[in-house]
């Protein structure tokens, strides 16, 4: 695959992305109209209705213009990261998101690291100790882990490590630095549990599959060291299929993140999402949805590119 093929690949994907974004933004915008009641009702959200407030809303949201024009103006604003202001707080949506994003990102990255380290590590270990005690314990743990939603895991962790053994704080995000990490440890573990089980299950299956391959037998038959066989043959070939699940993994983390933030009362994006959904704060909801979908789409694109780099068979298929 030379640069031309790369260019076509990336531009094709980018084109698809733009289309997807247009569809997504339209659906997001339409949420306002899907909601029961008129748009003004939605935006008032129970505040007293007066001619002045209605007029103000009409001007702010261009409600007097045709639907498509409203959409266009909304998109133009959204592209400048302007989603209007929250109904609850009347503060700009963007400010609220900005204030909460770092905590959520930190939680996500923390959980991601935990997921990868424990999922791949234990998965490889279980595969190499296939059918022995270690493997059985790990596999049993996987089944429970896969069946345990993050909020349940969170409650269990709270019960053990905050109530019974008061080692960790029960809620909040701490005051920055190590304190934040300390506060986010239980949430991150709760969040990583399901995704780690998922990664573990796939890693184990992939490694077991690769271990059966002729090329591993042939590598050992040539007297290569164990370390080399594991690194160059087993891991290299087993981790390619693991890459394909990162899209699913990512949505696990987002969903889990919402639940975990609620469980541990962490002021992050997930909590914001649920609060605005409960309060029917549509401008806020729209802002969060667009942000999260953008992140998901970009991560998926990134995964495809990495996949292509990692697997020469895909890269050179037409070469």
């Amino acid at each position, binding site marked *: 695959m030379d640069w031309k093929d790369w260019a076509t690949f990336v531009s094709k994907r980018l084109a698809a992305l733009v289309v997807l974004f247009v569809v997504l933004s339209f659906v997001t915008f339409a949420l306002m109209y899907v909601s029961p009641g008129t748009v003004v009702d939605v935006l008032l959200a129970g505040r007293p209705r007066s001619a002045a407030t209605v007029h103000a809303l009409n001007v702010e949201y261009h409600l007097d213009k045709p639907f498509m024009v409203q959409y266009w103006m909304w998109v133009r604003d959204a592209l400048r990261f302007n989603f209007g202001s929250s109904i609850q707080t009347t503060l700009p949506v963007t400010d609220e998101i900005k204030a909460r994003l770092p905590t959520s990102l930190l939680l996500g990255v923390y959980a991601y690291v935990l997921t990868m380290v424990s999922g791949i590590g234990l998965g490889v270990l279980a595969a190499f100790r296939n059918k022995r005690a270690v493997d059985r314990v790990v596999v049993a743990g996987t089944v429970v882990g896969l069946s345990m939603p993050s909020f349940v895991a969170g409650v269990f962790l709270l019960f053990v490590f905050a109530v019974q053994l008061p080692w960790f704080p029960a809620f909040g995000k701490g005051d920055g630095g190590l304190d934040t990490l300390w506060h986010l440890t239980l949430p991150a573990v709760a969040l990583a549990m399901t995704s780690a089980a998922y990664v573990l299950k796939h890693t184990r299956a992939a490694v077991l599959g690769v271990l059966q391959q*002729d090329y591993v037998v042939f590598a050992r*038959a040539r*007297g290569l060291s164990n370390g080399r066989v594991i690194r160059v*043959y087993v891991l290299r070939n087993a981790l390619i299929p693991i890459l394909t699940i990162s899209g699913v993994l990512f949505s696990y983390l987002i969903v889990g993140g919402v639940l975990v933030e609620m469980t541990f009362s962490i002021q992050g994006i997930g909590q914001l999402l649920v609060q605005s959904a409960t309060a029917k704060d549509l401008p806020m909801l729209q802002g969060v949805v667009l942000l999260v979908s953008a992140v998901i789409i970009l991560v998926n694109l990134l995964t495809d590119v990495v996949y292509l780099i990692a697997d020469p068979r895909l890269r050179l298929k037409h070469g």
Partner: protein
Amino acid sequence: MAAGGLDAVLTVRDLRVAHIDGPSSRTLVAGIDLTVRAGETVGIVGESGSGKSLTARALTGLLASNLSATGQAVFEGRDLLSLSEREWRTVRGRGIGLVLQDPFTMLSPTMRCGDIIAESLPPGRRSTRTRRAEVLRRLVEVGIEDESVMDRYTFQLSGGMRQRVGIAAALARNPSVLIADEPSTALDVTTQKEILELMTRIQADRGMALILITHDLRVAFAMCDRVHVFYAGSVVEVGESKELDALPLHPYTLGLLQSEPPVDHRVAKLVTIPGAVPRPDDVVDRCSFAARCQWSSEVCTSAAPPIREISAGRLTACARIDEIEDELREARQLVSVPASKRGFERAGTTIISAQAVSKVFGGSGQKVVALDSVSIDVGEGESVGLVGESGSGKTTFARLTVGLESITGGHLLIDGIDVRDWRALKRADLRRLRQTVQMVFQDPYSSLNPARSVGWTLAEAVTTHAPDTRSVERRVGELLASVGLSPDDAQRRPAVLSGGMRQRVAIARALAAKPRILVCDEAVSALDVSVQAQILNLLTSLRDDQGIGYLFVTHDLSIVRQVTDFIYVMSRGRVVESGMTDDVLNAPQDPYTIKLMESMPRPDGAWLGR
């Protein structure tokens, strides 16, 4: 066994391999003796389940973790079977090398060929340049002069090239013994010969000992000084190639030799071995071959007969060899008698008539021409061979005749119906075509639905063609009987049947439509030699009894020789030669046919230039 002599590099005594499943264990290899001398080529010949691959794995310490090997295997003064994994690493590659069967799976798809060889070189620091030069030298040794191969991934190479790279990697640490496990089986016949020649040359140049594992007696005889015949997990006979070929001293070896259709003449009827190979675990207490042997007596089933030396270097496990040696000699000589020439003229009505047929795959993008203006006729009651290697288009043609593909050019007439597009045919025409041509597929393991019983599959075939059949059950029974199975087999699922039985069921399914032509697409190539002969005889008798005609699609010229009257030789989508089978094979005209004939394995060292 002869004590092995002082020059023995590898001495195996009573090697046993068992499958361990908790407290129970199942024997897979039941006591094998083997001696390999320096610079010698030793053959291990056996059908599937004989334990030959397991022996190779045991001798390189690469058995799966649920298999255990016991016995003794002395190499360079150490017992291999008691080595630790760490000690094994000093033996593998450097002492004993291993080449596997399938070049398509043997090399990692994520590595470049040069790196695969480079990592296999003896340990030690090298600059990038010297390493590259060394890798190149190794590639040249296996006949690859093209330097760019180093930078290619294995999936960018042909099967033959991959196997060469594999051999170079296996030889990188200069082993004193190389074990080659079916190194050419997955390859085309012409490539097979190249690989075998290459290994013969390398073995001679390096003075290395070579253990060749193969299912093909002809290949073993051509390449090896001595041959061990394996059957159901034990060695039944050992001897020098020439002697073994001239006079087998075990009924199984004789049976194998008789089942193997000769390439240079037609025999009246292939002699077959009845039944199928038993599981080693079921025959540990008796002669493993007793159940299929015509000379079997009480001695054979009372205890496992030990292998014993008859004359210098000649061993057999047959307990009754003294009594039956003369009969074996007589039977061996009988096989070599050619059958009388069959009178044949292409006079009957033509059923399949292909005129300048072409088939191009792929739409607007990349096009692949599978068939390029091919003209082939198959007449009523004729047996026609279609011969070629993979990529020749022979299978594509077979698929055109049964509606799995449609032509893209030319004319295809079947029973007078113009088959341009199978999907556009009228229902009545389609029905008639189904009852004219039916197909038997290559792989009996997957051509039957694993979820359905034999009876279900056959009943469906019966009712599809004759929905008003009154007694479907009786018809199924008749079909089973016609292919040599019992009506009771109807209840069984494919998983419990042997390969040969499955192929019989597949033939019965095709016969349900009462076709006039049976297309056999490599129908016996996935079967063991002894079973292959059974199926070929069955097909011949069906032709004699019911007048069915055949289109035999195969790569194997010796099969074509035995069962066809007329052949077409195909290469790269074209028919390069056609004519009466004996005429074409006796005096091939086209360079490709000549090469194909030369590539057919012959049980003679001269074939590989030894």
